[in-house]
């Protein structure tokens, strides 16, 4: 677990491969956006962005080379984000269906 007398990051070659992959995935996400995949356009965009973000976290941010505890911290950030999204969306993104059947659902803010 020595960190000061070893190089714990990635090699130069790894950085360049990750950089190239990120550029290719950027091109892919633009290509996907200009083609009609029906309701899958947004999920595809999010999956590509998720892959790009994971590459950055694992290699540029060195999580792949860090201790298990750093893995836990990085995963905790993602977990808490999913809790935030999960509870928010389980309310707001289901209101249209609820409004059709129940009368006293909180109304949308009006502009």
């Amino acid at each position: 677990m020595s960190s000061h007398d070893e190089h714990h990051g990635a090699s130069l070659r790894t950085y360049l491969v990750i950089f190239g992959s990120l550029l290719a995935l950027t091109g892919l996400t633009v290509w996907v956006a200009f083609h009609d995949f029906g309701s899958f356009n947004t999920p595809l965009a999010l999956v590509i962005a998720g892959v790009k973000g994971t590459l950055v976290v694992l290699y540029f941010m060195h999580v792949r080379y860090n201790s298990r505890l750093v893995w836990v911290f990085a995963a905790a950030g993602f977990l808490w984000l999913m809790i935030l999204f999960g509870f928010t969306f389980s309310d707001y993104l289901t209101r249209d269906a609820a409004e059709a059947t129940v009368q006293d659902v909180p109304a949308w803010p009006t502009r």
Partner: protein
Amino acid sequence: MSDPGGAVLHQFDDLDQQVEAGRLGMWAFLIQEVLFFGGMFAVYAVYRHRFPESFAEGSHHLDVLLGGVNTVILIGSSLTAALAVHAAERGHARGIVTWLVGTIVLGGAFLGVKAVEYSHKFHDGLIPGSGFVSAQFETENVEVFYSLYFVLTGMHALHMVIGVGIMIWLIALTLRGYITKERQQYIEFFGLYWHFVDIVWIFLFPLLYLLGRHG
């Protein structure tokens, strides 16, 4: 107690412990940042679900070319930041300064493109508020999209400005000879911050610029 470069602060046993504690502290800060931006992404999702056509129409007014160029610039700046950390791990002061200057140049280019985009929006009457010209759109509530566009990209740009300030400070420390191999974590922790800002943009680019581009 080994302290080769005189870099260990008195509350730590050794350099390994100090580096690991600092690294976890930096990640705890980044978790907070994830949730800060996550709240805004959640608002985006809720209103996009509510006004899907308005979001697609608003997005159509953004310049995909400028947004795409900025994505490439920012990914490039993440590479130069990673190379600065790479140099710091080996105690190469010149490498640190060179790659941090490169990161500042790319970050500045990103902010310059952003300024051009913002001024276009200003001229087109797309600044939310009393000056917003909603008559140019077929759907209502495009202003909601632009409110989120300016809040999300504005907060992102603010993070980049802060990052540039930190880099200037780190370059000064390096030139004074303070950043030795034992103090490489200064550069490493800045790198974590800069890469996080890059990840935010990786999600902002498709979610803001690439809606409703097909058909």
